[in-house]
């Protein structure tokens, strides 16, 4: 969870300190005085990310510990020969630590798609009415049939779901799934933030680790897809929408380049730590100027990308023109500056969200707000501009000390009542994404209708990410991402009984079930 206001500022300042002197501008355009200040870290991790940069020495000991732990585990793969290089040891250590048991369940070696029938189930389609005593047929990864008078095809593996419910798999649109395994003390496992400010070509899909233990742990609780987003700099990179099963990133990818992530520059005023490292009070005019400079930095970069795209197009049509130089960084920006793909703006405060919406309009981008703690205050604007919001702060402490205790709990209800498009996310980097249903549940406890809470973690994120033709509900033709439960999907005490992702039956095992099995009967 993100910190209360003052603390987040402190974290940001620490990031700045940590980055100072190290920061090199990855992409250097015409303006030289690029400063390496603003780096909104991933919500949960700001301080130790900063610390890790200061403390690379921790890696070696973390490595040794990880190895030791992996080797100590009874069913663990054999330790790798010591002669290997450190880097190989690191990979091996993490991999072995993640695969204590049956490697097929941990590594997500994908099972074949087949023909399945789930019968006698209560089917919560989300997009339409609930179906009692229904049947779902899955073939070749897709939902082939849904209803009460569906014939089970010959050769189908049938699951009798009497007394059980089927839901579409949940989608968390605001994570860093697979980009970080252990944040503190194992910086070798952290691939969330690139060096520098403008990194549109940092693509999450390149670094998502399909064998992260977080993935198995998350899916067995019913979250079947996630947006994995890079976090660093002003332009963090491109997020990927992935299914939480697969042996390679390619197998997992639903949309490999799903959105560009921009940390909208924030005016930092006052705050600081109450402890020894208290920072001098910010001069407001200077803080505003600094934020404006950063916005200008992004603006120029976007304009440059537009120009680059036009030049490349012109040359493609007319080879007689001078050949424009190729540039992978600008190339990555082109679909976004043309509004062909969405741009996610991380912004929580009212002023920042207003700024981001204005900026997106000016630059003709397709904006999505990620964060949105103050979104309840600007529902009119969000509705008018049709800007969707992915709420990540429902279980955060309210930003301000005088905010009402339920300000963030009821944020989703306010958006829903005003007709703003929204989704609910855990905002977690990976290990706790499985708690997504409780974020939605808390919103439902504070005014969001239960059906809307369910949509907020299924159909709505799919719509916002423009994949509602494939994900988010139980409909014929959609990808078979299905969760069979013994109760309400959002209730804590509910158990997942069967799981399908991309039409493949996924075993309900994870690093956690394996450790449980290994130790629960120790006497």
């Amino acid at each position: 969870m993100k910190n209360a206001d003052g603390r987040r500022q402190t974290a940001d300042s620490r990031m700045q300190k940590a980055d100072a002197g190290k920061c090199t501008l990855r992409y250097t355009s015409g303006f030289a005085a690029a400063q390496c200040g603003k780096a909104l870290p991933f919500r949960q991790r700001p301080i130790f990310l900063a610390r890790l940069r200061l403390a690379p020495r921790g890696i070696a000991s973390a490595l040794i510990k990880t190895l030791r732990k992996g080797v100590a585990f009874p069913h663990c793969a054999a330790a790798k020969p010591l002669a290997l290089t450190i880097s190989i040891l690191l990979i091996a250590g993490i991999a072995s630590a993640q695969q204590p048991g049956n490697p097929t369940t941990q590594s997500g070696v994908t099972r074949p798609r087949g023909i399945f029938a789930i019968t006698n189930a209560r089917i919560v389609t989300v997009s339409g009415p609930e179906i009692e005593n229904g049947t779902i047929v899955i073939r070749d990864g897709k939902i082939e049939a849904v209803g009460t008078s569906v014939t089970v095809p010959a050769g189908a593996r049938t699951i009798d779901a009497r007394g059980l419910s089927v839901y579409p798999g949940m989608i968390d649109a605001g994570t860093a799934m697979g980009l970080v395994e252990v944040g503190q003390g194992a910086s070798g496992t952290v691939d969330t933030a690139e060096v520098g400010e403008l990194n549109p070509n940092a693509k999450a899909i390149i670094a998502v680790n399909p064998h992260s233990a977080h993935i198995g742990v998350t899916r067995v609780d019913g979250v079947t897809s996630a947006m994995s987003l890079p976090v660093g700099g002003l332009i963090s990179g491109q997020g990927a929408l992935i299914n939480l099963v697969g042996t390679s990133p390619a197998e997992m990818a639903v949309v490999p380049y799903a959105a560009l992530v921009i940390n909208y520059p924030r005016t930092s005023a006052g705050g600081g730590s109450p402890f020894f490292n208290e920072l001098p009070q910010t001069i407001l005019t200077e803080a505003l100027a600094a934020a404006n400079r950063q916005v200008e930095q992004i603006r120029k970069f976007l304009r440059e990308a537009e120009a680059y795209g036009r030049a490349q197009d012109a040359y493609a049509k007319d080879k007689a023109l001078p050949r424009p130089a190729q540039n992978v960084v600008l190339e990555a920006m082109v679909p976004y500056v043309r509004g062909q793909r969405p741009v996610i703006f991380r912004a929580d405060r009212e002023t920042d969200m207003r700024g981001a919406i204005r900026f997106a309009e000016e630059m003709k981008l397709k904006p999505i707000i990620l964060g949105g703690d103050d979104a309840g205050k600007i529902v009119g604007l969000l509705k008018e501009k049709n800007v969707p919001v992915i709420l990540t702060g429902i279980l955060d402490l309210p930003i301000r000390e005088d905010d009402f205790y339920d300000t963030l709990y009821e944020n989703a209800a306010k958006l829903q009542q005003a007709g703003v498009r929204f989704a609910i996310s855990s905002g977690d980097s990976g290990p706790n994404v499985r708690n997504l249903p409780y974020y939605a549940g808390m919103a439902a406890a504070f005014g969001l209708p239960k059906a809307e809470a369910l949509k907020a973690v299924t159909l709505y994120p799919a719509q916002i990410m423009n994949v509602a033709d494939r994900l988010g509900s139980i409909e014929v033709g959609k990808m078979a991402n299905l969760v069979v439960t013994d109760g309400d999907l959002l209730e804590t005490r509910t158990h997942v009984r069967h799981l399908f992702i991309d039409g493949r039956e996924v075993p309900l095992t994870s690093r956690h079930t394996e450790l449980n099995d290994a130790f629960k009967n120790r006497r």
Partner: protein
Amino acid sequence: MRRLLIYLVGCSLFAGFLPAATAQDRSPLTETIIRNATVLTITRGTLTNTDVLIRNGKIAALGKNLKAAAGARVIDGTGKYVMPGIVDCHSHSMLDTINEGSLSVTSMARTRDVLNPNDIDLYRGLAGGVTTLNLLHGSANAIGGLNTVVKMKFGRPVEEFIFPGAMPGIKFALGENPKRSSFQPQPGQTRRYPATRMGVEEVIRDAFTRARDYQKTWAEHRAAVARREKNLVAPRRDLQLEPLVEVLEGKRLVHAHCYRADEILMLINVANEFGFKIKTFQHTLEGYKVAKEIAQHGAGASIFADNWSYKIEAYDAIPYNAAIMTRAGVNVSMNSDSDERARRLNIEAAKAMRYGDLSEEEALKLITWNPAWQLGIHDRVGSIEVGKDADVAIWNGHPLSVYSRVDTTFIDGQVFFDRQQDLARRADAQRERAALEAAEPNRPPAGGASPRTPRGRRPAHDDDLGKGDTGEVEQP
């Protein structure tokens, strides 16, 4: 002057807004009756359509059609659930500072000296049905400072927070935090001892060896006094060793932060060697690997439901921990270690039903009776029984449901949170805020320093996030 003005206006702003205003809503009534509710007693099952009579701060009666005094506050509990106030066995709320991190043994430092009764997160916790906190020193040191057990009487003077008769305790810490593995010394600063788990064990052994000597020195002195020897000089008091002598004598509870199975066993061995008991292992993420040994020692375990992977020593944490340890006979509680998580410990408890299939009653015990036992206050709180303190919360649905929220929270029979009162105050609070924002001293200046946002608060101290307990408050 201008700054001072801003500060003063800011102060009044918060004083006006903060739900400290509950004080005026608090009924002077000595009697309250909750009618026709479902009562989760914890120790005596679930009572349906039951009245709860609260008199003079205690639970006076449970039953049907109870009679209340004329003028008693009557609350219709139809369709609602009454459960004991939640006891959070690991909190750093209210503490202006957490870690005296300069030494590896700081048993002379007391959390009691840094309590801030105006911490707004207390109110937010009350709104989650929490009534009692175990305020612990941080985990920077192998032997940390002394704890304070409080009732969350937000809006009252700090003296009224102290839980009467609670056993005093002390924080120990093992593993990555006391060995400072995530802490980079400032230039010119030497690394603090210990830097390994070997050193952590040695620090504890050394401290108790000195404490035992100190205990003997005093025992010899007292014996000499008893023999009426002349010209005796009393030994010098040692404030560091006195609490450790109390531990040796069973007068002070040890709450030991730990993660890995090996360090849990290490501390059990040291404790056995010196003849004292560990009352609780805190966090205890690998407790499930050595549940048998923890049960044999008689210690409790106060844990997170499902937090893991935030650091190396948390990589083997599993959400089945509560169930495995419970079945091995360990008294298990779920704590927050975070002002945020404290607001939804009911959901944390319910996770033990999802992972490991604990019963409803076992899950509820994780946040009520069990932590009360761990703090030695189970004769006062942790269940709903006649004669116990009236520390209860009324929920609008079953507290283990994610869809439920708290309507009213009582401590000693007084209302410290009430949702309807909170809602009723909002329009006024918003008007007041708008007026203050419009006041000249609060308008953004054309230049110069900006109005200060409220001072950066001490971190919420998620040990699990590597903040607070580990890194935020170290001295350079």
